């Protein structure tokens, strides 16, 4: 079937099998490999993207379900001039990553969460990220990164 999705502001149309998962559509049809696959069972959150602005695990959404909708991946977070999104900037500055495999999913989950809750407590950040696994960092610097990003008021806009 033909699926048209606006990915990071650009309309993409590809012929795919009906059973194609959104993550494979993004990685293989569109070539956006920033979104990673970590578990295949919706446990790890490495594949988190925004679907119409809300975070979803793209291994649990069919490409067909996203037909006609907007998807934002990690590649779409920085400004067109290349300036990092405040969450990306914070992950870099606060040492919020080591191997970096979980990072795109963490950043996308954080973006969705901070839109709902622009001024969260540490406990709220932890609760919001429970569906995203990281094996390297022990999460503390990830939580710090998101709190630091939240302090940047521009983000809320």
């Amino acid at each position: 079937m033909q699926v048209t999705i606006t990915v990071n502001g650009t309309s993409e149309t590809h012929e795919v099998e009906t059973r194609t998962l959104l993550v494979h559509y993004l990685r293989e049809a569109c070539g956006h490999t920033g979104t990673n696959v970590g578990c295949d069972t919706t446990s790890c959150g490495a594949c988190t993207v925004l679907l119409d602005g809300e975070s979803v695990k793209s291994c649990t959404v069919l490409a067909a379900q996203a037909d006609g909708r907007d998807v934002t991946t990690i590649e779409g977070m920085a400004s067109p001039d290349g300036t990092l999104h405040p969450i990306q900037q914070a992950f870099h500055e606060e040492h919020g990553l080591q191997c970096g495999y979980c990072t795109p999913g963490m950043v996308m989950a954080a973006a969705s969460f901070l839109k709902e809750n622009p001024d969260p407590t540490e406990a709220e950040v932890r609760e919001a990220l429970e569906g995203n696994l990281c094996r390297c960092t022990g999460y503390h610097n990830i939580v710090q990164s998101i709190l630091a990003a939240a302090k940047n008021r521009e983000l809320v806009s």
Partner: protein
Amino acid sequence: MASASTTTARRGSGVGESAGRPDGVPKVRGEFAFSSDLWMDEMLWGKTLRSPHASARIVSIDARPALALPGVHAVMTAADVTGRATYGVEVPDQPVFASDVVRFHGEPVAAVAADHPEVARAAARLVEVVYEPVEPVVDPELAVTAAPLHPSGNLFRHVRIRRGDPSATGDVVVEGSYEVGMQDQAFMGPESGLAVPAEDGGVDLYVATQWLHVDRDQIAASLGMPPERVRLYLAGVGGAFGGREDVSLQIHLCLLALRTGRPVKMVYSRDESFFGHVHRHPARMWYRHHANRAGDLVKVEARIVLDGGAYLSSSNAVVSNAAAFAAGPYRVPSAAIDGYAVRTNNPPCGAMRGFGAVQVCFGHEAQMDKLAAALGMDPVDLRLRNALEQFDTLVTGQVLTGATPVRECIRAAMAHPLPPDPTPRDPMMSRPGGAGLTADDGDVRRGTGLAVSFKNIGYSEGFDDYATARVRLEAGVAGEPLATVLVATAEVGQGFVTLAQQIAREELGVADVVLAPAATSDVGSAGSSSASRQTWMSGGAVQLACAGVRRQLLDRSAVRWGCALEALRWEDGAVTRLGSVDRLTLAELLDAGAVEAEHEYHHRPTKALDADGQGDAHLSFMYAAHRAVVDVDPGLGLVRVVQVTTGQDVGRALNPVQVTGQIEGGIAQGVGLAVMEEIVVDGGQVRNPSFTDYLIPTTLDMPDVAATLIEVPEPDAPYGAKGVGEPPAISSGPAVLAAIRDATGLDLRRAPVRPEDIALGVRPA
């Protein structure tokens, strides 16, 4: 003199400062290419067929139905291996593909290449393998006397340590048996790689690994090719923790690429990843500790059995560590320790962060608590009293010549403030059970425990451990000096890329340092990114290669000025002449062309252990102490780890923020092993190969962490820096167990602690 520092970051770029990662920006942009992102036009997809049985004879394999499927380009089995039929990181005892027998659930039997991943999966299912199942040997203690499962027998290694007076006895004797389950590294990026046939008949392999050169040598042997025709390039690594020390898909990929003449990519699913790499050895341990009335250890007796699974992997080195560190970081005048690593039909076990020191720490620390109770002593005081000091002798006879700040580690871990007591006002999410099955606040019991550990750095027992680095200094595009560091060191997330830049900046006084991609064809081996060794080894190689560059620039200055070398000084990235104002900047010196130097850094030789387990087997040691605070609901068996504090001996922190990142990440893995992580193996069958059934800590499981870095420079080490990766994963788990015992009064002997161990546990009389 020890100095304890908290980790305030200096945001500079030299050694000792918390410089930012050079791969940080590409990683946050999603532009960093992990091995799973590799792509070539016309590439095929590989898939491995694995044994459903833990033990079976292979009666026949028929690949024809798979080959008949449109889109299938090759099916390869043991008969198609062009070189050595077996591989192994220490000894090649593991078949590339099983031929006559399978020895574990998940052993590779065939590999398929097809033009689409789904076709490859379908084709693998079509390969007809007729098995004759055999009763698996799954009990490691029975395996020793069982019929051999392999021509090399079932006992991988027995490490026997005898020291002091065998007849010594103490006034107080405590005995205990302990068990540790099988832990998975659970790195986030499953195994993946891309093999590309080369014009010279060789192969180029892009892969996520911990040690490019040793992979290359194993691949070349099994392809029947000289090593120089097998070129490995490090692709982005999504974590490792020991799980990428052994070859997984490397040989299969290269065989498929050479057979089909096409690039072949393979990416394991999470499920396959559980079968595709070795795990942490499960352990059974028996201990008897003797002490005098004053609380001085007199003798430690121990018997440790590690289940190595079907193939050797690094079991020989793991059991050596388990035996050497079995008594913990304490003065022990007499010891009788026997460590066994055995072959079974369980999944192969090998390297994981902490490598043998983790399992025994659960044993020796439970014993120290038991001993303290028997003596009526405070467990912290007992440990302080017996803590190793510099120039003490280990149970292996090795004298500790390096920094040995065990007491400082203990005091630092204990000095951090305790968390506030739980109250009924606490949010439900902070109670044991969190969002799900939540404890009633009135039932929650708090407990505190301490554990202390030590472990070797680098490769031991006479292994010639080395790392190679090449550094080139030249004028950059705008004339500014530009240093290029070339090492084959695997960046697995630990941040060696940051350190390499920091070291080059420090040594050469230049701002611009780039790292060349890691590849076997361009530079010699860096050794493995394991055993907490790369800061010391590859760091030392980069430091000395930079020194070689400086020496050449001094030579160049001496020629230019017509003076003796002795009159020249290296000062802030320029050369000056004594007794004059002459000064040559790097830019001026590099006018005459680039300079390049290479250094192969070898650590001090170590020795094999003798028949009594005695010898200077290790380069150096790292120490750490962890204090854990837990809340437990004894009725529901639920545990929440509230806080872990630590004092860790780091020698010197070359990048404090990165060191703290290692500590927090290592503690997460230690906490995981203590309360949730276990690969459940039943009759040789792996029951939980997924992240829905094998749980690792989430944001909500992670305790608060407070860390003190103990900085006592290590005399032999570059910049005085010890390794930092493993210690946080060693005593953090045993501290959690001690805290749960403290909270419940239960005699818990097994990690991980399961809810039923608490809820149905029997209090000692």
